[in-house]
């Protein structure tokens, strides 16, 4: 029975759907990575509030910059891949309204929604970063005046 089932699966249009879900699985891993990075940034942000020494602040800043770059890269990758899925869905041979077609659509929409939520977090983090730089510049200026 298993052999027959396997053969049946290979012969059906389901093969495309199977590869579709493999790609989705890969994207889910990237999402997990993104969540981890954002958590690190959040922690670093909290840490920076308690720090007063310049060398420590500098170290945190460097880590955050690195993580922000990684976040941007990952998010961009995800966006590109989701757009590819969209095109692939359109080109897909399955009839509109068929089970496979609706399955692809629902899953892709779910991924887009996730990205939308994440994008806002990224924007917020970037603004925090920018704000921190402004404060730094002002402190530096004040020090010069004192000297």
């Amino acid at each position, binding site marked *: 029975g298993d052999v027959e089932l396997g053969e049946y699966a290979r012969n059906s249009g389901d093969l495309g759907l199977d590869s579709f879900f493999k790609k989705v699985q890969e994207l889910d891993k990237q999402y997990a990575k993104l969540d981890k990075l954002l958590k690190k940034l959040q922690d670093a942000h909290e840490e920076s509030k308690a720090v007063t020494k310049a060398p420590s602040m500098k170290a945190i800043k460097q880590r955050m910059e690195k993580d922000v770059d990684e976040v941007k890269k990952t998010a961009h990758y995800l966006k590109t891949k989701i757009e590819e899925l969209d095109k692939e869905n359109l080109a897909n041979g399955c009839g509109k309204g068929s089970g496979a077609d609706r399955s692809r659509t629902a899953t892709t929409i779910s991924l887009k929604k996730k990205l939308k939520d994440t994008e*806002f977090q990224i924007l917020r983090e970037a*603004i925090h970063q*920018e704000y921190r730089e402004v404060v730094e510049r002002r402190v530096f200026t004040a020090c010069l005046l004192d000297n």
Partner: protein
Amino acid sequence: MSMSDSDSSSYAGADYKSFKQISRERLLHEMLRSSKTGDSKSTWKVLIMDKLTVKIMSHSCKMTDITDEGVSLVEDIYKRRQPLPTMDAIYFIQPTRENVIMFLSDMSGRTPLYRKAFVFFSSAISKELVMDIKKDTKVLTRLGALREMNLEYFPIDSQGFITNNERALEELFGDEENNHKGVTCLNVMAKRIATVFASLREFPSVRFRAAKSLDATTMTTFRDLIPTKLAAGVWDCLMKYKKSIPNFPQTETCELLIVDRSIDQIAPVIHEWTYDAMCHDLLNMEGNKYVHEVPGKSGGPAERKEVLLEDHDPIWLELRHAHIAYASEQLHEKMTNFISKNKAAQIQHGSKSSSEMSTRDIQKMVQALPQYSEQIDKLSLHVEIAGKINRIIRESGLRELGQLEQDLVFGDATTKDVIKFFTMTEDIAHENKLRLLMILASVCPEKFEGEKGQNLMRLAKLTEEDMNVVHNMRMLGGQPVTKKKLTTAFGLKFDIHKKKRAARKDRPGEEEKWQLSRFYPIIEELLEKLTKNELSKEDYPCLNDPSPSYHGSPFSGPVNQNPHSMRSRRTPTWARPRGSEDGYSSDSVLRHASSDFRRMGQRIFVFIVGGATRSELRVCHKLTEKLKREIILGSSSLDDPAQFITKLKMITTHELSLDDIQI
């Protein structure tokens, strides 16, 4: 930032979950999330449902919730479906023979539609159907689960559910010649009510309205026995659960009160002046959906936009049970507060010139922008809705009508006042005349007998069909002919003394904060008596008097937490209402709800056969706070006045034809 995760974590920390939350989690977690096989390559699944289970699911979850649990495809069991043999399937179906046949044809044979099937029946399945499934050895190997989900009700509110028996009023209170539809309707209703208790793992003490005409001279009518029969049906199901459901309580943990529409014929038609009720009564809403026009982008034509007035909207959640006047006030105050606090709103409304904006201000604006657009949309929506309602109230003279309605109910007005109102007032909406007469017919039924009644209805220029509605109200009255004579005599005595004929008594303890808020549905009175153990055993007998351990059981909550004196009651610190300032945050609302529930006593369920009203739902929320027990309202349906009137028209009676003969 999405609040959904923190919402969930907020609930996860609470030890007490609301009725709606439990239903939702059972569907999403118990059914969808847990349906996995260890060797599953793909975690994505197909969900197959029938017409009823689709409705059940959509009452609790959205498509995104379902997708988040790994379901990428939702299918109708009766439509032709594409084979997806590498995917697992979840079946959530009613335990009917047709459904089982469809399922077997899907999964049997050499080429099944899906790889593995996880089957959940919405209620109890018969043994013979289980045997049919077990006969097929190929299907057995492909089964991942075969369970009774026991969830066959529709949560419509955090504290309300319906059984979707939309024709209950017609089938149960109509023609007595044929009880078959009525019996079937009751059986379905009982089964679905029982699944509520299965889902919540609660075992109720069951009380019901007793049949009134129990003397030998009068034959008991079917409709008189509706609560009795329903209580017995529910009880049968509960006894089975005791044996079949693991962890189902063996002693009573809550209370269930079963009544029908005959207890209160006024609540369904009187104007209820809360925001929620006004929306559904005056605006042409479709379910909870409100359609409004928003200005098009960059000056284009207006677009029609649909919004749902439901629990996810924190403003709606806060204001829906408030008097319309209070709601209007609050909305104005919220808008004022919002503009003064939100950075983007300040800039938008020109509180600063653009040249003065610093980098810091720009950053704050950018941060606040998403919140701004979301919140201003919601606030604007509600301001528009409230404005529309107030306009309709003015244009249709609803305040005068409402005053007369309430005066009739409290005995401060009589038939003469109604006649005067009809002759003096121009342009009364047709439906409002009918509703006013229905209230009068409920308070003074003898006024509508014979020629007098006919004249009264002709004065109001009612159609034959509408007169039928008024006549049919007797079917809900539950009074046999013999008692009518007694009532007439009784009435005559009172007429001599010129005493008030009142369907309600004024309550000294309750202050009337707003105009036209005197009215209360009978269910409020019944529930208060129930919690004080003052509900008459004769009028509302109990199927299972609590066992001796009931009161002393350490595992059940306190039976009666009510204060001794209603008038001198002090509000505990934790129960004082929080400032509405944080009303914008749904997380704040949910935390509030969650913390409140932690101190709840035992639940009370009240089920109304033949349709419930929004005023009754409001009362359950009100008393939940007052009595510190979660009160859950169930019914065959939730009806707006127009819907109730339509259903009343459908009732056919032989008594009516007898009246025709007399005429």
